[in-house]
Structures are given as C-alpha cells and as structure tokens.
C-alpha cells in the first residue's frame, strides 16, 4: 500500500447546511504532513428515488432591466423600467417586482456596501441581480425545478420545488453573459444613453433581448457557463507558425484589418483581439453563428448548400457574415458590428467571418470604414485559396498527430479542465455545443456536484483537492492548482479512495504532463 494513504482516521465528520451533504473532511496521515483533501459523501434524493414522478426543469420566469434613477418620484416608477420580459405582464406587477428588487438591493447594501446582493432564494424561484453599469440593474428570475408526484388517491398531484438545485454561480454567470453579449453588439448602456437617451436604449434592449432570451436554455446551464472558457485547437508548432504567417500576410495586404482571429473546428487557434473580448466573441461564434451555418462542404453533391466547384471557384471560402454570394449582383455588403475594449474606451468594428472547410477566420475592421463589393472580392480572392489550403493542412497534421499519440491516449476519463489564466477549457463531458442545448454525457446531479466543488474553490485562495463519493459508483474529484481547475468523474465499481486518487494521478500524467500541476 502506498505510504501516502495511511489514513489518519481522526476524520472530522460534520454535516453540510443542506442536510443532503455528508461532508467528511479526511486528513491523510502522510508522515504528518497533511494535505488538504476533502472527501465528501453525497446522497442525492433524485438518484435514490425510483417512484413515479414528473420532472420540471428550471425555466425563465422573467427578465428585466431597470435604473432606479430614472423615476425617483412617486407615480413615475414605470420610467425606471427599461426592459421587461415577458412584456405582457401587467404594468403594476412590473412596478411591484422592480420595486421589490430595488428594495432588496438597497436593504442588503447596508450589510456589505462593497458586495451587493447577488441572488434571492425563495421556495418557488430564484432571483439573480447584476449591476453591470452604475445604477443599471439586470434581474433574472428563474423558477426552481419541480417534481410532481403522482398521488395514489386521485388527489391533485403534489408539487415539490427543489429549492437547492440551482447553483448561484452558474446562473449568475448566465446573467453576466447576457449583458456581455448585449455589449458586444451594442456597446454599453451608457453609450446608447449618450447617443439617443432612454428611447434609444429601450429600443436597443427590446431588439436585442427579445431574440436573445429565446436562445437561453436554462435547463442545460452548468459549470462551463461559469468558466466561459475557450476551447483551443491542439496543433503542432509548425502548422501554428504557418497560420501566423497566413494571418500576417493577410493583415499586411489588407491593412484595414485591425484584428484577426483564427478558429478550426470551432476551436480557437489565434486571436489578436484581447482576451475578454475574445471570450464573448467566441461564445457568440460557437453557440450562435457557426451552428446556424451548417457545413456545405459536408453536404451531398446535389445539396443546394454545396458551392459550385466549377468555373473560377478554386477554393471553398465563403462569408458567414456579409454577402452570401459574391456573384449575386444584389449582394449586400453589410456586416454585423461589434464593440470591443480599446485603450480609449471601446471601438466599433465590422465583424467579417470567413470560412473555408473547417477553418474560420474573423477579420475586424474599424466601423468607420466603408466596405463594399470591391473589398469583399479582394478579400475573397486573397483569403479563399490560402485558407482552403491551410484548412486541409491543419486537418492532415491533426490526423497525423492523432495517429502518433494513438488511441490509448484518448481520454477514457470524463473531465473538465479550466485555466483562469488563458481561459482554456477542455471537456470530455460535453459532447457538442449546439445552438440549442449542450449535451452532456453525465447525469445532471454529477454536473451539480462539479458546480458545488467549484463554489468551494472560489471561497479559498489556496490550492486544494476535493473528492466526492457520489451514488451509483461515481466518484467526483476536483483539483485546484494555482489558476487551474480540474474536475474528474470516475465510474468504477467498488473503487476505493486510494484507487480513485491513483486514477486521477494517471490522468494528470497523461493529459497534463506538460503543465505544472501540483499533486
């Protein structure tokens, strides 16, 4: 037996607040040199029950934005409300709800002026507050998940709200993402106020959130939403340098281009945009833009989506934003505009997304420039052939690397990795992010455990490790080292703590051998 695992059975046993958690903090007696590893046993009510019942996932009840300074006098409360979803709610109720939020925020502020309230837990729902700009508040109200239990005696079904199922950090992050996404396409609230007062702001909010809220899928939010990470495409140095070379050449020939980002297979390879802007742009690209444009290259020969290979078209390049067909005489050359941070506040840019096979490039050009047919044709002629070639190079190189590393290196583990420093995330739990849902291969209860472990990590600065024994032979391990977090889900029959720890060590040795990860 490994000497590290003489368990010093002076285990502190205490119960967590919710009662469903049995937290056992175990100090390993490693030559008296204890490492901070917590072991938890978790019994989920849902996993344990096998009764006839109906599940309701969390859903959006309301979403509103207000500014308490806009209607300070009595009778003018409606002016505070800048956006309210659902809009058909009766006016007085809107005012009441906003008033309540205002009051809660004000009240709690007295206890901790620096950290205003973030959420309010009630039996039926949970409210999340977020003040992205001074005095502008965004509130999201989410209904708790419910279980409807069939009653034998024909009485109406009993509804049981699961008050503790939602994670504050997950939905808090979703709320912040809503704002970031608004800001990406519209700039700050303050900017709209400057440009056209409240009228313009309400107009913009209405236009943006009406559509955006429909794309929120609150039932499938998880730890990845908290991280808001970026998945990087693994690539060898030489191919990476070729991409660098390509980007530099394009930027040199088309000097209007201010920023360029390069993605392959929906994973990032290069960005000259700053990290925070890239994070939200990445989110937009991977959850909204790319899924809308299914790959015509993969479509059948007769599919209308397939580009004509005949004629002078010698490449697979096409615009995902702007003109859909350059040959069309009526083609529109309008690109979406985005706002990014710059040294003097923000800058407004045209977002050109151009794709050839699996390689996508975003070119960003100052919004003050007029972009017309000529520019688009020039870009298409320059980028199309090169990008097509590069895309096939990357694909080839990627396959070679995969062959070298072999299938045994393919992870048999389910894990999520996140690095706060470069926002790199990697998940073998999530199958594929699509526009509508993120499919995970594990039970939601396990995902919730991950969220809980993360919340624990946030609370302390030091590196630590938490091992949770979940039901049905699942073990969940969370590790935090410097700015990195790793969550592993293991399913091994009759595994014990020692074996689980060994498994995780092995995973670190194979998957993360090139980074400094304390064990």
């Amino acid at each position, binding site marked *: 037996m490994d000497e590290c695992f003489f368990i010093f059975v002076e285990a502190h046993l205490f119960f967590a607040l919710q009662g469903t958690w049995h937290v056992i903090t175990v100090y390993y007696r490693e030559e008296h*040199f204890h490492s901070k590893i917590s072991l938890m046993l978790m019994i989920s009510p849902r996993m344990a029950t096998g009764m006839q019942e109906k599940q309701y996932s969390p859903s959006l009840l309301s979403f509103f934005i207000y500014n308490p300074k806009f209607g300070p006098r009595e009778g003018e409360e409606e002016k505070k409300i800048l956006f309210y979803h659902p809009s058909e709610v009766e006016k007085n109720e809107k005012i009441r709800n906003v008033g309540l939020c205002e009051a809660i925020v004000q009240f709690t502020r007295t206890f901790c002026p620096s950290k205003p309230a973030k959420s309010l837990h009630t039996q039926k729902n949970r409210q999340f507050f977020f003040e992205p700009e001074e005095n502008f508040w965004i509130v999201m109200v989410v209904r708790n998940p419910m279980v409807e239990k069939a009653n034998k005696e024909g009485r109406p079904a009993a509804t049981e709200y699961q008050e503790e199922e939602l994670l504050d950090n997950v939905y808090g992050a979703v709320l912040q993402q809503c704002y970031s996404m608004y800001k990406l396409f519209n700039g700050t609230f303050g900017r709209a106020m400057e440009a056209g007062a409240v009228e313009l702001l309400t107009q913009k909010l209405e236009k943006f959130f009406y559509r955006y809220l429909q794309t929120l899928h609150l039932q499938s939010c998880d730890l990845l939403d908290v991280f808001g990470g970026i998945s990087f495409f693994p690539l060898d*140095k*030489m191919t990476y340098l070729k991409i660098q*070379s390509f980007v530099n050449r394009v930027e*040199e020939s088309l000097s209007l281009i201010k920023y360029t980002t390069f993605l392959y297979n929906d994973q990032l390879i290069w960005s000259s945009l700053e990290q925070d802007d*890239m994070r939200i742009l990445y989110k937009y690209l991977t959850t909204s833009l790319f899924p809308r444009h299914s790959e015509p290259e993969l479509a059948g020969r007769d599919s209308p989506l397939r580009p004509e290979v005949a004629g002078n078209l010698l490449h697979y390049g096409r615009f995902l934003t702007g003109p859909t067909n350059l040959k069309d005489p009526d083609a529109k050359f309008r690109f979406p505009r985005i706002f990014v941070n710059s040294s003097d506040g923000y800058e407004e840019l045209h977002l050109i997304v151009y794709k050839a096979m699996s390689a996508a490039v975003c070119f960003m050009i100052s919004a003050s420039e007029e972009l017309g047919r000529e520019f688009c044709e020039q870009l298409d002629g320059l980028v199309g052939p090169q990008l097509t070639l590069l895309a096939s190079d990357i694909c080839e190189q990627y396959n070679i690397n995969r062959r070298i590393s072999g299938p045994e290196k393919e992870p048999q583990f389910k894990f999520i990795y996140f690095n706060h*420093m470069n926002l790199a995330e990697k998940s073998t739990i999530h199958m594929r992010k699509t526009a509508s849902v993120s499919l995970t291969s594990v039970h939601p209860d396990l995902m919730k455990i991950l969220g809980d472990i993360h919340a624990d990590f946030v609370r302390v600065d030091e590196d630590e490790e938490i091992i949770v024994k979940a039901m049905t032979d699942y073990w969940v391990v969370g590790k935090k080292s410097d700015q990195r977090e790793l969550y592993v889900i293991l399913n091994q029959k009759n595994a014990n703590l020692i074996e689980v720890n060994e498994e995780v060590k092995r995973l670190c040795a194979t998957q993360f051998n090139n980074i*400094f990860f304390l064990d």
Partner: protein
Amino acid sequence: MSEEHYLELCESPVQFENASAVNNVFFDEANKQVFAVRSGGATGVVVKGPDDKNSIAFRMDDKGEVKCIKFSFENKILAVQRTSKSVDFINFIPEYPHLEFSQECKTKNSSLLGFCWTNWNEIVFITDQGIEFYQVFPDKRSLKLLKSQSINVNWYMYCPETSVILLSTTVQGNVLQPFAFKNGTMSKMSKFEIELPAVPKPAKLSLSERDIAVATIYGQLYVMYLKHHSRTANSPGAEVVLYHLPREGPCKKTHTLKLNTTGKFALNVVDNLVVVHHQSSQTSFIFDIKMKDPDSTLNIHLPVLPPWSIHPYKIPLTGPVAVAAQAPVSCELYSSTWSVFQPDIIISASEGYLWHLQVKLQPVVNLLQDKGKLMDFLLRRRDCKMVILSVCSQMLIKGDKGNLPVVATVFDKLSQVYKEYLEAEQSYTTAVESGASRASTVHKRPVRTQAVIDQSDMYTHVLSTFTERKDSSHKFVIAVLMEYIRSLNQFQITVQHYLYELVIKTLVQHNLFYMLHQFLQYHVLSDSKPLACLLLSLESTYPPAHQLSLDMLKRLSTANDEIVEVLLSKQQVLGALRFVRSVGGHDNISARKFLDAARQTKDQMLFYTIFRFFEQRNQRLRGSPSFTPGEHCEEHVAFFKQLFGEQALMKPVTV
C-alpha cells in the same frame, strides 16, 4: 552610373615590362606567373607572380628565341623551350647544380607543341604526334620517361587546377581527348566530340583553340566551347556550350549559354560565374549555370544581368615617374591587345598589366529585382555575407505592401543553406566520433562558406536594429520575427533563445501580453531556462507569466531547483515540499531553507508541519529526529520549542 558596373579589374594588378621588340612576355597558367624575357634572357628574365610581391629576376644565356618558359611548382625547376625538338631545364634549387640540361622529345620527327608541369618534378611534353610524361631528376640533371601515348594532336589545352590536358585530334579538330595526371600516373579519360555548327567540305581543321576554354565551375570541370553564329542555321547569335567533364564516365553537353549577339568574345570564370566579354559592344555577360529557368528542361541559360561593361579602370601612376599633378590615365577596356586566361585573368601585354577580374555584388542588388532570384545568386558567391545581410536589412525598411511573402522567401533560402551546413557539420562530427578507429575513410570537415548565415548574424546585423527602428510598426516587426522563426522551424533548426527574447521584448513593449500567452501556449517560443526566467521577471506587469514560467520549468525537467525557488518565493512552502517529494529529491534538500520560508509565512501550523516533516526525515535517514549542527537549524528548533513546547519535539524511536 558606376553603381551598376558589376565587374571590375582588381585594384593592384601585377605590373611587368610591356612586350616589345626586345622584351618577350610569357604567361604561365599553372603558376599564374608572367615572364618578361629580355633579349632571349641574356639581359634578364623577370618573373612576377600573382601574390608574391617579390619578383624573381635572373639571367640566362641567349641560346635562341624562347618559345615557352615555365617554372615547375614552387619555382623549383625552370623549363625553357627554344626549339621544336627539345626543352631545356635549369635548377632553381639552391643545393643543386645550376647548369642547364636538356631533353628531346622521344617520338621521331615529331614537333613539340609545348609542355606543362604537373608537379614540381613532373612534366608533360605535347607533340603533334602524342604526349610524353617525364619525371625530372634535378640532382642527376636527367629525365625519365614515365609514360607516353601516340595520338595526332592539333593543339592542346591545360587545366592546372585539375591537372587535365585536353588534346584536339582528328582532321576537324573537334574530337577532344583529355588526360588526367596525378602523382606520377597518367590516365586517359573518355574522349568526346564537340558539335560544330557546320561541317566543312572538304574536312579541315575547324575547331580553334581560341574557342575552347577549360575551367572548374562549382567544383566540376567544364569544357566551354564558344560556338559562333553560323550563317546557315537560323540561330539568333553565338552561344557558349558547356561540356561537363567528370573524373569518371563520359563527357556530356550540359549547358547552353545564349549570347544573342555576334562578334568577338572572350571567356572568364569568376566566382563560379561564366563571364563572356563581347568586344564590339564593350560589355560583358554573366551566366550562373545553377540559375535555372524553371520552364526550361534543356538547360538553356540567359544572362543573369543585363550586359554591362567592366568598371572603368584608371592606371595608377606609381614609381619615380609619377608626378602628383598628373591625373591617372584611363585604361582602354576590351582592348584588342588583351589576352584572357582562365579562370579570371586578363593581361594587357602592351601595357604590362595582369589583372584578376572580380564580381562586385553590391550593384547586383539593384539590378536583380526579384529578391528570391537575387538571394539564390548571392548565396552562391564567395564574399556574399555582408551583401546578403544588407539586402535583408533593406528589405525590412521598405515596408511595401505584400512584402511579407518576399521576406518569407528570402528567409527560407537562407535557412536552407544554413541547414545544409549544420547537417554536414553534424554528420562530420558523428563520422569522426564513430569512425575514429577506421583511418581508411578520411572525413573532411565541411567548409563554412560566407553563405552560411546563422541566427547570430541575422540577430546582430538585421533583426536587432530592425526591431529598434522607430518607423517600423510593431505589427510588421512581430510578423517578420515570426516569419524568421517559422523558417527556422521549417528547416528543423533549433531557434536560439535570443530570438525569442526579441519577440517577447517587442510584445511586452506594446502590451501585447495576450499574444505572448498564445505563442507560449502553442510552444512557438520553445522552452529554455533563460526564457522561463525572463517570464518570471514579467510577472509584475503580467501575472499569468508566473504560471507560464512554472509550466516551462516543469517541461524542461532539469529545472526542479528553480521550481522550488519560485514556489518558496511565493511562500508556497507546502507546495514546494510536495513538488520536491514528487520528483524524489526530498532527502537532499536543505531543511533550513524550508524552515526559513515557513517561518516567514507567520503560519504556525505550516511551520509545525514543515518542522515535523524534517524531524521524520532525520529519523528515517539517521535514526534520530534531531537536526545535525551542519544543518544550522538551531534557531528553528528554539522557535519550535517556544511555540509548541519542548514536549512537542518528536521522540526518538528506539528499536
């Protein structure tokens, strides 16, 4: 503009007394010596070589008109031909008798065309009926015939660099028979036929020695044939046809150099370039046989540069006759009195000058617009390094649009040559290491030519100044640096860390930390200790540099001590200890260092833990938990007692 003259005569020509009625001038191609023979030698012979400033002067008896006069190697024996039957010899070796001795050619009724020295004591007579190969015994004042060969000879030509004699045979003279000489042996090489533009009827001698030259180009022996424009064939002009003469195997026609003009021509080979002088236009063409037209499979070459004349030359007035006020006299170039010898010699017998022809590379830079071609051309020249580096610098200053692809092409060409040298060096080293015992194979150390431009050359002469220029945009600077790194990587050359430092410096200067992070993430900037330390120093301005640095140290796997230091400096004492243990070094670390660090954290529990760890180590290693005086931990033991009491100290375990 003088800036465009890419050919010039050397500054210090060999000066000799000009040819006249009383002064005969001879040139020996083997030793590159000029002989000025006054009155058949009676009033003096002056010999001037290319390098030796000291000329040799002597007298010899006038025994008739001198037809040919040549020293053997190292000026040991002088051979003089005065008749068509025999050659006279004079020893120049001090301890041997100076009396002349003579040798007649062996073949009866043959007429001596000339002779060539192939060694200090080996000589070849060429007669109209064959060749005779002799060894000279200066002490005995006699010669011994080593070998002879009968063959009808029209004329001959000698290439001293390779010791190959070319004989013109047959009636038309266009069948050439080469012989090679080496250490007393004579070997017949395979003969070949020069294709004549038109076959005369009746057959007569049609190939003149004036139209043939022999020279080594890129280490290979070539016979160059100046094929004049024939009136019957509809070729637009004369051309030079090159026949490759390998040591073994048949001779092949390999290159055709198109002149597209007619007239009188002369050939030189300078720095592996074939130079064709055209007298009527007073210009010279240069050809590089390695510069291929990609569309042509026939090896037809056009001049590399537009034809241009040799740089005007002023005769320096030196000696006692020189008057300060007198302006130097311009020398007539392309004069009909010029004689041209291989490889690069031009002699004006009437004026008494011998020049070496030289190629100036700087003017070529402006004449060859295509940078890729220019690089190819420059990389094959001898004194190319500084010119290439200046081309690189120039190309980076002119921030033309679409410049990057050109930059990439140039870098790739440099890298290729650099890589070839590194590989040769590598295989030489391994060959020497492995085959030290086997003396049979002699390994030649690869020669580092000027074309090998390494990273430090690029750094010092091009990149470091370029990155410091105020007018170059940082975007372009980074693009160029990445392009160079890409090129080196493409040729699998290990990139030196100072190039990475240059990249980092530039990125940091412009606050482009996120870019830097991405480069490191994809290992574009390869791991090294200096780089990791540089990153550590960036931590205050860019906190993630800390993580990047630690990762790098970890990957190096030889920097465990550094990792411990970094962690301790961050007060991560427990982390440092766990790391040391994971790499198995915990029995050798200094207890004091860790206890110091633990105490600095002011965390008593941490101090306890660390203290206890070392107590246990002591117990395990020495059988007692107490520290030895050598560990200098007394102060910490005292502190421990003060905090936790004497009884908290670990009790020795008695077995």
